[in-house]
């Protein structure tokens, strides 16, 4: 099934249009890469809302490995404290590269397994 998925569903086209817009509900990919990442553990698998797009930035996961990094859109993503911790009324925003994110719906782990 994975082969049948259009590339654009799992990876953004370089320099392409942002995949998400402010207000979109997203989910942070789970899984633990074997290299540097800026996808903090405390938001992995969590649902949040796109606050704004920050434009394209070199993907830190790749530059940290000495690779020539792809540029990807970074988003400010807002999370409710209650979702993250089970309590609290505040909001936490985290800055996340596009490939860290999946649409909140539909609920599938397929994308998570790919990375």
């Amino acid at each position: 099934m994975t082969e049948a998925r259009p590339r654009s569903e799992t990876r953004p086209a370089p320099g392409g249009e942002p995949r998400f817009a402010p207000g979109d509900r997203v989910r942070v990919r789970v899984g633990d890469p074997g290299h540097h990442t800026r996808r903090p553990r405390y938001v992995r698998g969590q649902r949040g809302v796109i606050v704004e797009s920050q434009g394209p930035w070199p993907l830190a996961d790749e530059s940290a490995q000495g690779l020539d990094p792809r540029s990807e859109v970074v988003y400010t993503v807002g999370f409710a404290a209650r979702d993250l911790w089970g309590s609290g009324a505040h909001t936490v925003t985290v800055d996340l590269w596009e490939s860290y994110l999946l649409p909140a719906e539909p609920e599938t782990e397929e994308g998570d397994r790919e990375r």
Partner: protein
Amino acid sequence: MSGDHASAPVAARVRTLEARLIEAGLITDDAVDRVLAAFLDRADPHNGARIVARAWTDADFGERVLADGTAALLELGFDTKGRDGKGYRLKVVRNTPERHNVVVCTLCSCYPVSLLGPSPGWYKSLAYRSRVVREPRAVLAEFGLELPGEVDITVWDSSAETRYLVIPVRPPDTEHLDEAALADLVTRDGLIGVAAV
């Protein structure tokens, strides 16, 4: 300035590493000092305070700096592009009587050094980084900032290439002060969001 840096385990590691690199002839003491001096040159929380005072006194600038902090900064002669041309994006967030903002970097210690000066030791501590995202109200109270219960809090985790600066609420009874005098009221901790101003 920042407390207990010299005694931190990482400081000992850095001193050892630096000594080995100098022994091996790969770097010199002078070269390290030059890089550090360039890094910290003009890095001062007064820079951030000037941005705040301008936003307090010039409503149009206040709008522009919230919409695009990186661009508005150029108006005051600050450029977030480093000497390597990479730089960072600046996001300015403004406190109101209804909403308070506070900044952290949970992954390491990202911080706009040129605008806020060298970051304090506590900003890099595991205690601050892990707790402020979880219980900001309690952490702020420990800094001496007791927020009324109805004030909403947003914690900004600088996990990518944006650096954050907080515009505090302008203190009451400051109408008579000019921009320079207002800037003198603003502290580094206020710019991070752990103090009222």
